[in-house]
């Protein structure tokens, strides 16, 4: 019996590399101790921006649909794709709108600006405070463990293949020390010309 953000469990992490970003999540959906699903990914793509959503699962689903709606309207009005920085501000405003009745989520955004090629990552608290980071952002029930793993393993200017190994090991080892996260992992490595999505082999306990 604790807070809404740890009923369903889940974790996400994003890191910056050399002209690339990576974002990863676990696959568990639980109801406290019971695991209900091992196929509940928490990363959603909106044009150039990737959104990782942890927390109360109903809010994860609702927000992914709210942002799909808002980004579609953005595409129709602006006649162009939304950039990660703009999407991050959209997330921030959407969350702050519910300041006194918030969504119980811990979102992170990752992407590469299509015009400048600059990698971009940021995290938010549940009411939309943007935490802009140059190295890594974490979220979810294993955020403490992820902070420890990322602070140790991350170094600047990692190539995409090396960044993949680093973010995967950070995610895997952090979620293994968290009862509420795990049951699979997905990692996206995003560069200017391609996106590689990998399903990792993990402990299933």
């Amino acid at each position, binding site marked *: 019996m604790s807070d809404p953000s740890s009923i369903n469990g889940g974790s996400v992490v994003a890191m910056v590399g050399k002209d690339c970003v990576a974002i990863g999540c676990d696959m568990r959906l639980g109801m406290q101790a019971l695991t209900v699903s091992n196929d509940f990914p928490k990363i959603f793509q909106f044009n150039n921006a990737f959104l990782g959503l942890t927390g109360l699962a109903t809010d994860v689903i609702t927000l992914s649909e709210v942002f799909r709606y808002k980004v579609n309207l953005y595409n129709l009005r602006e006649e162009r794709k939304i950039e990660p920085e703009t999407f991050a501000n959209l997330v921030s405003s959407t969350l702050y709108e519910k300041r006194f009745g918030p969504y119980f989520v811990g979102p992170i955004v990752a992407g590469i600006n299509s015009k400048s090629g600059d990698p971009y990552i940021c995290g938010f*608290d*549940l009411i939309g*405070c943007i935490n802009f980071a140059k190295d890594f952002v974490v979220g979810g029930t294993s955020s403490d463990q992820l902070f420890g793993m990322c602070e140790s393993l991350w170094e600047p200017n990692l190539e995409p293949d*090396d960044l993949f190994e680093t973010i995967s090991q950070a995610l895997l080892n952090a979620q293994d020390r968290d009862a509420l996260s795990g049951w699979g992992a997905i990692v996206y490595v995003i560069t200017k010309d391609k996106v590689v999505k990998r399903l990792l082999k993990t402990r299933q306990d």
Partner: protein
Amino acid sequence: MPGFNFDNYQRNKFLAAKGYPLPKATSTGTTIVGCRFDGGVVIAADTRATEGDIVADKNCEKLHRISPTIWCAGAGTAADCEFVTQLMSSTLELHALSTGRKPRVVTCLTLLKQHLFKYQGHVGAYLIVAGVDPTGPRLFSIHAHGSTDVGYYLSLGSGSMAAMAVLETKWKPSLTKEDAMSLCAEAIEAGIWNDLGSGSNVDMCVMEVDKPAVLFRNYRTPNERSTKEQSYMFARGTTAILKEKVRPVVDTVPFDIVQETIIQDVDKMEIDS
């Protein structure tokens, strides 16, 4: 409709009653100070943002721009400081366009205090507002419930007492710009070292009469991380993969031009006289 949306209020109240309280929002722990000097005002802040006991951001920006010559340092709930500041910035800019005059610090102060009082302290923004306007340099502080204070030197946040100890010891009237800058940096450092809710670096903004405001991001960085003992890079192929999918980023569908016809030459267009 713009503004706050209370749709989740009932659901969240029900959850709280069932034993699921609201999780912690990011707080800026914080040490912020402001100090007047001859011909201007300077404000400074630390750069640590906390979520409970965890440091969520080691280098966040607590100095917000309200107008080119009016800047604000925020303590309390980070999202509230950010949004209330942005709201004031937009409102002031429209107000300045409407009045045809440069925006004044007292205007921002009044708008802020009336907004914060309306929300009875639930918008957790504790701000030091400072700037130069046609009436001269100004320095104020605002609390979340809507009270305001005036002073030549002020401090707010969990590290305010550490900072005020420095300010009370070393402040004197008629400081020079350089004296005020080093005084503020020292006051923030007192918070960084002695207050657990504050840390990392010192940000500073100097607003001088008849000069553009200058933001010194990371004016002092007394907590740089030393070089790591070794690299923890893993050999490629360490992580076991079950499935891999590569999707190339395609901007536009490639096409061939079949036929091209010029309908009207722009240069020869008739223009109405």
